[in-house]
Structure formats: structure tokens, C-alpha cells
């Protein structure tokens, strides 16, 4: 009989130290050698990982009350504005925010040396961060200015809450125009001299459970070096499938996650400020998801290798900025990782934007945590909308 398991059974095995845990890379090999039925019967959990710039990231901070009290109307952390349109001493520091005196792209391409992502990295590194805040004064919050050096230990809560992370799949970006362009996909040289891609392919969490048979609200994950949770689907969650020429499903497309965790427990190795030349500041986030092998279906999807996962090739000089549909074809992650791909018969050098070695390290860490019984699976209270949910992207008109 085909193997079936529940979250509860797997967690029992984890507690007893008996669970068989392997990384998604290892599963790909195992299934190629021994088949899905065998792998499903042997393996309880498969771990995934990804590490790359994820702009839709940030942290809620409760900065604590001063004496006398101040209702913080404006907040700056190391000069980077944090959103404070919430309660008196709460603020949200977003990854892409930069200092008010940042030259931005006025000196093109702008360097965006220090932004919210760097503030977050400095905080988790235990560094002192300058907090400056102003208020307008109320009867209950009379103070109008406050400035101090703070560390993560000095403040009450710090909750990493990233509205859109772990993009399921991403385009392979090229630039067929005659001048270099600077994008969130890196520096793209003219005349399609390079092609940049950005997922960890066969290790990428959402490519391994494309039908959301196991991932949902409450899934416990690796986040920023510690434990986090899936809070909801991410923004722009479009869990559809790209089609090939014959209309068959080619590869999962655009599902995303919103994730949450305790920033105080995270590490600067897995939350690193990033500066995208000519584009902006960001935060590189380390994220990994354990996939329970509940049945053969789950196993089959989790076993998709780099040769079975595809990315669309998109022109970032024209089609992307002008929001024109269409692409220059599809390439497999195996081709992308080989270092060169063929576009219209021409060889183009490829480079990744997200770190495969770090993704592998995350999958390995998660595997060890589970093997040691330190990390139990979180059974979702609700699974996320899948490709049958009929979600369509809205566009701004005007």
C-alpha cells in the first residue's frame, strides 16, 4: 500500500529521534535512483532553503517609553526613517528605506549604501544603533524629542514581519538594449552579455510544494537563522503554473509567503543588508521550509530537480519596465546553473542573484535541527490558496 503519514506521526518520530530527514537536493537524487514509492516509504521530512535579497521585509519594533513619555511621530534609526504611524512607541523599519540625504539615483547609478536592511542587520549583530525621534506633544505624551543609542536588547519587542518572501520562481533577466542597465536583478550588460536568475531551483521552498499540500498558516520555518512561521500568503501571491508551447504545466510561477519571527533570536549571517546598484537598498533573507512527506504526491513534487524546473527569460530593458507581456523563452535551472544558456541561438553567460551555497547550508541546518528533535513541524491551521484558487493579478489603471 502506498505510504501515508500525518504531521502528528512525523512529529512523534522527530521526538523519538527516529525521523528520516534529508535535504531537497538529496531527495532529487534518491528519487532518480530508487523512485517515488521507495523515497516516500523511507523519508519523513525534506528540507529546503533559499538566501537572497527580499525587498518586502522589515521589522516591527516596540522602542519602549522614555521619561517623560513621547508619542513618536517620526522615527529614524541610524538616519533611516522608520514608519511610525502606529501606536506611540511602535515603528516598522522597512528593508528598502534609505536615509533622507541619500543621493538616490541623482548620481546614477546610485549606490544605496545604507538602508533599512542594514539597520536590521546591525540590530541583529548586536550593534548600537542611533534612535532619533520627534513628537508633537500631547497631554499624556508631552516630550517632543528624544535621541539615544540603542541595541536590540534595550527595546521591548522586535518582530521580523516580511509581507512577501520566498518567491516561488523568478524570471531570468536579460538586457538586449545597447546600454548597461541597473536593476533589482543586478547589473545587466548591454546586448544580452549576461543573464541573471534568482532562485535556488531544486532547493527553493515553494518550488517543492507547488500545490500547497503541506505549507500554510502556521508552518514552522527557518527564518533569519532562527525559527519563524508562515503568517499568511505573501503579497502578490499568484500560485499559477507557467505553460509550455503545448499548454502543459511547465513550472510553478509566482506564489509567495508572508513570514514572521522573533528578530531578537536571529543572526546577521542570515539577515544581511544589501545595496542594489542603481536600484535601492534591500535585505537578504535566509529562509527554509521543511516539507513533510505525507504521501507520494508530495514526494513527487518535492523531488523535482533543476532539469525539471524552469524560469522565463524576460527583457528588463523593455518588456519588464513597460509591463509588456511575453518572454524570450524558458530555461531550466540546470541550464542556468551550468553558467551559459542559449537565447535565440546565442550563448549568454549566466549568474545567480541568490546564494546556492547558503541555500544548501539552510537546508542542512534545518535537517540537523529536526534530526536532533529541536524543531517540530508546524501543522498549518489553513493551507494557502493554490493554482485552482483563481487568483488574478490586478494592475493600476491610469
Amino acid at each position, binding site marked *: 500500500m502506498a505510504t501515508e503519514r500525518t504531521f502528528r506521526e512525523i512529529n512523534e518520530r522527530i521526538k523519538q529521534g527516529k525521523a528520516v530527514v534529508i535535504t531537497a537536493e538529496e531527495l532529487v537524487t534518491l528519487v532518480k535512483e530508487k523512485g517515488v514509492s521507495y523515497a516516500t516509504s523511507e523519508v519523513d521530512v525534506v528540507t529546503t532553503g533559499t538566501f537572497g535579497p527580499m525587498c518586502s521585509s522589515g521589522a516591527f519594533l516596540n522602542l519602549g517609553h522614555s521619561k517623560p513619555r513621547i508619542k513618536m511621530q517620526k522615527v529614524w534609526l541610524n538616519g533611516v526613517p522608520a514608519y511610525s504611524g502606529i501606536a506611540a512607541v511602535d515603528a516598522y523599519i522597512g528593508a528598502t528605506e534609505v536615509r533622507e540625504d541619500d543621493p538616490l539615483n541623482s548620481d546614477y547609478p546610485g549606490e544605496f549604501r545604507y538602508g533599512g536592511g542594514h539597520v536590521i542587520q546591525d540590530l541583529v549583530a548586536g550593534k548600537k544603533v542611533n534612535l532619533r525621534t520627534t513628537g508633537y506633544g500631547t497631554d499624556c505624551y508631552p516630550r517632543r524629542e528624544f535621541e539615544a543609542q540603542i541595541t536590540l536588547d534595550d527595546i521591548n519587542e522586535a518582530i521580523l514581519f516580511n509581507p512577501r518572501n520566498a518567491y516561488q520562481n523568478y524570471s531570468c533577466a536579460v538586457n538586449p538594449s545597447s546600454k548597461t542597465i541597473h536593476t533589482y536583478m543586478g547589473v545587466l550588460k548591454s546586448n544580452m552579455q549576461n543573464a541573471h536568475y534568482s532562485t535556488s531551483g531544486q532547493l527553493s521552498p515553494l518550488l517543492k510544494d507547488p500545490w500547497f499540500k503541506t505549507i500554510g498558516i502556521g508552518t514552522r520555518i527557518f527564518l533569519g537563522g532562527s525559527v519563524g512561521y508562515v503568517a499568511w500568503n505573501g503579497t502578490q501571491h499568484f500560485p499559477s503554473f507557467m505553460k509550455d508551447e503545448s499548454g502543459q504545466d511547465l513550472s510553478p510561477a509566482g506564489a509567495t509567503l508572508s513570514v514572521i519571527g522573533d528578530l531578537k533570536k536571529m543572526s546577521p549571517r542570515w539577515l544581511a543588508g544589501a545595496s542594489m546598484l542603481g536600484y535601492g537598498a534591500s535585505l*537578504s533573507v535566509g529562509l527554509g521550509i521543511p516539507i513533510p512527506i505525507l504521501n507520494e504526491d508530495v514526494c513527487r513534487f518535492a523531488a523535482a530537480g533543476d532539469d525539471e524546473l524552469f524560469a522565463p527569460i524576460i527583457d528588463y530593458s523593455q518588456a519588464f519596465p513597460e509591463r509588456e507581456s511575453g518572454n524570450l523563452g524558458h530555461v531550466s535551472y540546470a541550464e542556468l546553473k551550468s553558467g551559459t544558456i542559449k537565447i535565440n541561438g546565442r550563448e549568454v553567460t549566466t*549568474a545567480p542573484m541568490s546564494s546556492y*551555497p547558503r541555500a544548501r547550508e539552510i537546508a542542512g541546518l534545518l535537517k540537523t535541527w529536526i534530526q536532533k528533535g529541536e524543531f517540530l513541524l508546524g501543522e498549518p491551521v489553513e493551507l494557502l490558496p493554490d493554482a485552482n484558487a483563481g487568483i488574478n493579478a490586478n494592475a493600476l489603471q491610469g
Partner: protein
Amino acid sequence: MAPKKVVLRFSADISDQPMIYKLVKDYNLVINILKANVNPQMEGTMVMDISGENIEAGIEYLRSVGVGVQSLTEEIIQNEDKCVSCGSCTAICPSGALFIERPDMIVRFDSDRCVVCHLCLKACPMRAMEVRF
């Protein structure tokens, strides 16, 4: 005068000029080309040792025809604490000094191949490539 190590950068429209010949013939310099690289757009980078009496005049000549000349007392290093092996510098680096080691996908830096073009300094999102003087 002691030999001077310089890096030259020149664009397509001047890459067909007999620059080296002129340095040798008109300025009496001894040239030792250490690395040379021309990309598909015919933009070139060259690292060389120059020695002789008229180094400064020779460099003046190069600049006058539009060649970027930079003294190579500086060196590029990869800060391994900051590098996350993302790889996004590897297709930018014109000399192959930054490259991905397969199948592990770890990004390595071979300083011997570096032509000190500085492109990676800002292209690296982690600012892990640094100049050392």
C-alpha cells in the same frame, strides 16, 4: 626610474590605435604586458609594467588619446566575512577573476586574474569586494 605597474582601459573606437608601439618607439619605454582582455564590445583592459625615462610623458600620451590610466598600487580583495557567494558579480567581472566553482556554486576570487577595473566594488550587493592600497 623604477618600473611602474599600470592598468589601461580603452574603448572600442581607440582599440585599433598602435598605442604600445608608440610608447616603445616615441617614448623609449620598455613594456611588459601582464594581462590583456578585450570584451565582445571591443573595450579593452590591459595591465602592464612600464619602465624607462619617459614614463610620465608616455602616460600623458595615453591619456591624450582617451585611454584611462590607473596606477596599480591598489589591490582588490574579497572580504570573506561579507561575501555570501551569491554570484551576482561573476558575469560582471570582465577578467574571470570572480568565478563560480561548480558544482558547489561557491564564488571564488583569483586576484592574479584581476585587472582592478573596480566594476565589482559597487555591483556586489554585500559590498564584499574591497580596495586595499
